[in-house]
Each structure stands twice: as structure tokens, then as C-alpha cells.
């Protein structure tokens, strides 16, 4: 069978097509293929607790349009989401809720800490009785985006960094958080 090798920029592998143009053979690695698929269709959970959520909504809107990178299917249920963008201050009363949402998400799952409040507590770091000083105390965080709040461009940059991180990890070894 005569086949022609085709290269696609975004596909991690080699594609061979026959003369009719149908792809007959794909040579790739399972890890690269699975990571390619996963990283290009991350479904974020709709979760915003304060001003960072406004910037997150802006990033989803037509002007910044995170659909370009595969994030458009924002889900209202943690069962259907695999990315949680923690946008906004997490108070002690919200901490059990965030933890439960994270636990309800199916593996593989990723967390983005957006904004100063989620990284260290931000303006509420010292002498605060009500704010979690850094959400990495309660859930494992993949990408930190500094800013108060970060601009939509920064959020997109962080999400693209997360895609890079996913592409460079093993697809079927999932590191569970330490108990």
C-alpha cells in the first residue's frame, strides 16, 4: 500500500495517509497521545468566590476567549470537570466546600490557584481570623498565577503553562495527594 507521511504541528506523532487521503496509520506514544488529548480539552469548573472570578469571566468572554485553547466547556458540576480555577479568596467557611468539590472531581484533575489570596492569603495574610493562607494547605496546586487580581492574559498564560505541564507528565501515573 502506498502511503504518504503527513506531519501536523499540533499532533504528537506521525500520520500516514493512503492516496485517497484517509489516515490509515498513526504512530505515537500512549503518553503523548493521551496528554495531547487531555491538555487540549480541559473542562474547568465554574467556581468563583470574589474579584478574581470577574477576571476569569472576562477570560471566558469574546474578547479574550479561552475557547481558543480548549477551555470553553465550563461545567457547573465537579463530576464533569477536570480543572478547578480557584478564583477568589477562600475563607475558612468555604474551605470544606472547596475540599469537597476537589474530592468530587474525577481523576486526572488539576488545580490553578489564581490571585494573591489563594497563593499566600494575600492582603489577608497577617492577623486574619477568617481566610485560608494559601489553598495549597488544603488542595494540591499545579499552577500559581500571581496578581490581585491577575489580568485575563495572565490567566491564559497560566492555563497554557498547565497544558505544558500536562504534556510533560506521564499520562497514566496519577500522583495522589498525601493524606
Amino acid at each position, binding site marked *: 500500500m502506498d502511503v504518504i507521511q503527513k506531519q501536523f504541528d499540533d499532533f504528537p506523532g506521525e500520520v500516514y495517509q493512503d492516496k485517497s487521503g484517509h489516515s490509515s496509520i498513526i504512530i505515537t506514544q500512549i503518553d503523548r497521545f493521551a496528554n495531547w488529548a487531555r491538555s487540549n480539552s480541559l473542562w474547568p469548573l465554574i467556581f468563583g468566590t470574589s474579584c478574581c472570578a470577574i477576571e476569569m469571566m472576562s477570560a471566558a468572554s469574546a474578547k479574550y476567549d479561552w475557547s481558543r485553547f480548549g477551555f470553553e466547556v465550563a461545567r457547573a458540576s465537579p463530576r464533569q470537570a477536570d480543572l478547578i480555577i480557584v478564583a477568589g479568596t477562600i475563607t*475558612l467557611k468555604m*474551605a470544606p466546600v472547596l475540599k469537597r468539590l476537589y474530592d468530587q472531581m474525577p481523576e486526572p484533575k488539576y488545580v490553578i490557584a489564581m490571585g494573591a489570596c489563594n497563593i499566600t492569603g494575600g492582603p489577608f495574610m497577617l*492577623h*486574619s*481570623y477568617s481566610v485560608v*493562607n494559601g489553598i495549597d494547605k488544603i488542595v494540591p496546586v499545579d499552577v500559581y498565577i500571581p496578581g490581585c487580581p491577575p489580568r485575563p492574559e495572565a490567566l491564559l498564560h497560566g492555563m497554557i503553562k498547565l497544558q505544558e505541564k500536562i504534556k510533560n507528565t506521564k499520562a497514566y501515573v496519577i500522583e495522589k495527594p498525601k493524606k
Partner: protein
Amino acid sequence: MSQPVEEAIKKIFPELTLTSWAQFPAIEISRDSLLSACEKLTTHPDLRFDMLVCLTAVDRTPRLEVLYHLRSTTHGHELIVKTELDESQLEIPSVVSFWKAAELFELEVYDMFGITFTGHSDLRRLFMPDDWDGYPLRKSYKASEVADNYLKSHQLLIN
């Protein structure tokens, strides 16, 4: 044109001294005479304070002040009523029967300062978690490590 609120207050409460705070006239009422004074403030035709704009408290250790910001929608005048409480006896009668808005304000003051409003039908924690210990806006409250201890006691920490 009705008379200024200062004159009406002097006439109706001759025993009280009228001071001013910012641009508002202010009077100080003892806890025991609070309810009877509220009765006059709401019903007297020259006062008619029918709106409770704000109810808050200030910790001036060793005493706590409860402040009522009142407004009359018929006359357009405003007044601040102050009540001082001793730290050892933080109880004050509820004013929900005069102003319905006091219901949530009193919950908030109870939550943050631990002042008990006697006569309030449902006094509970409003902003803080139900099992919270202490009253965060009191001067004596130590806020450091409270958050970490809470997370630890609820098994929320991951390492």
C-alpha cells in the same frame, strides 16, 4: 417646616445631653431606658425615626458601645443613639420590635462582639462557622494561628 431635630430631642429628652458625632447629633442612653426611649423615638410626631440605617458596636475596652444610626423618612433628620455596656455584662434588649432591620444587624454584632440581644428570636452565628470559638472583632481576640487551628481541627490540611 418642622423644627430641627436637636430642639426636638432637647424637648423630649430633657435629662440627656446632646452631643454631636461627625455631622450627626448623638445621644447616650443607658441600657435600662433603651426600650422606652426607642418607643418615643419611633412614635413621637416630632421625631418619627422609622428607619434603622445601621446598628453596630465599638470595642472601647473595658466597655463596649452599641450604636444605632437612625433616620426619619418623614422629617429627613438623623440621629445616633449610643449605649455603653460593661465587658462583664454584655446584654442589651433587642430593638427588633421597633425596626425590623435590626434583626440581621443584631446577629452580626452578636457574631463579631458577643453581645447578647435579649428578646431576639433567633440569635445565632451569622458569618462565622457555627462551631466557632470567640468573637473576632473584640480587642482581646488573638487572631494569629486561628485559621490554621481551624483547618487542623476539621481535617482539611493535606500535609
